[in-house]
């Protein structure tokens, strides 16, 4: 069986059900924006969700529910909601290019990060990572899971290569040190859960590297 660089079925189901944390959901949405096949499958799962909703035994609504909702329509005149403006990286896939971005910051030799503002949940946060050709991220482990989607360029871990659109899920057991194998820098979006623990000599940077 070939290794597929895609989210697991459970994770896709959780994405469709809306039970992933927002940072995780953004990484999955980025993957879907870049992989039409996976996106089609998720649309099927949304149809399953629609069917589940439609099959539910209706709950009884309060007698004034409709009139109260119509009154709210009167108040806001039913204006359609405008999409948020693009950020300064319009080349990003759709889920990312409308989320506010922090400043690029140094995070080790050849490694830059910038925060992406998505609703937070617990310690899970969302970052863009840009790593120079031939560079590795600092060797690190996580307290929780790390979800990554490659936006451009490519990186490799010990034996596996990840290219644009590929999705990787690394858990706390993995000592993770991806190395960029493309000629161009590798740009990734990652949802990090828990603290990153740097390994080896990079430990001296731990106080400075706030990923």
């Amino acid at each position: 069986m070939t290794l597929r660089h895609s989210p697991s079925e459970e994770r896709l189901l959780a994405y469709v059900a809306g039970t992933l944390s927002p940072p995780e959901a953004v990484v999955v949405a980025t993957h879907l924006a870049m992989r039409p096949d996976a996106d089609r499958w998720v649309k099927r799962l949304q149809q399953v969700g629609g069917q589940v909703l439609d099959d539910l035994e209706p709950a009884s609504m309060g007698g004034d529910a409709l009139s109260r909702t119509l009154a709210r329509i009167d108040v806001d005149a039913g204006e359609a909601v405008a999409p948020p403006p693009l950020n300064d990286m319009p080349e990003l896939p759709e889920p990312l290019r409308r989320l506010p971005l922090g400043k690029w910051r140094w995070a080790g030799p050849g490694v830059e990060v910038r925060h992406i503002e998505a609703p937070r949940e617990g310690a899970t946060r969302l970052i863009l990572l840009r790593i120079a050709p031939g560079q590795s991220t600092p060797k690190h482990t996580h307290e929780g899971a790390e979800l990554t989607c490659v936006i451009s360029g490519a990186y490799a871990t010990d034996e596996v290569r990840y290219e644009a659109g590929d999705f990787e899920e690394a858990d706390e057991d993995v000592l993770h040190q991806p190395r960029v194998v493309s000629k161009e820098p590798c740009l990734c979006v990652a949802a990090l859960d828990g603290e990153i623990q740097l390994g080896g000599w990079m430990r001296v940077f731990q106080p400075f590297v706030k990923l």
Partner: protein
Amino acid sequence: MVRPARMSSGREDLDRLIVAIAVDRDREAFAALFAHFAPRLKAYLMRSGATDAAAEEFAQDAMLTVWRKADLFDGARAGAATWIFTIARNRRLDALRREARAPQLELAPRPEDPERPDQLLEGAEDAERVRHAMKSLNPDQAEVLRLSFFLDQPHSEIAERLGLPLGTVKSRIRKAMIKLRVILQPSSGEGLA
């Protein structure tokens, strides 16, 4: 009490109601759509553990979003139930996890997204296949799949509710998903994640 919606409504009828809201801002169409979906949206949130009052509020909020975004509805892409499900799911994600300052997280496709030609063929006629596929699941598999759509921590909560070991729940979900893949995606060998 609002009368419970009629049990069997034609899919196309529901789609047409949304179009009437988008094009004519038709309040009677909205009332009919509300009668069908608001009680189901309320039931959806109550299944995930919300109180009656919170679920009622949620159903009204979701239907208000349906009114606002009706012009984004495209029946060729997804039927009414699927579209309203995704609205409810985004609202739920939002309501449960919103930070006051954080921007609203919007993951639904936008109208300016170029429509891929292969998507145009999908949508409405698939609804029938999806119904068929769900009927093909055995009752145990169908139950865990349904619960997966309601609960925040699906595996552990399902295990608790049904009094099953976690491993059994996981394997039932996995089998249900494989079966759906086989039926809904016959041309692709992607079922082996």
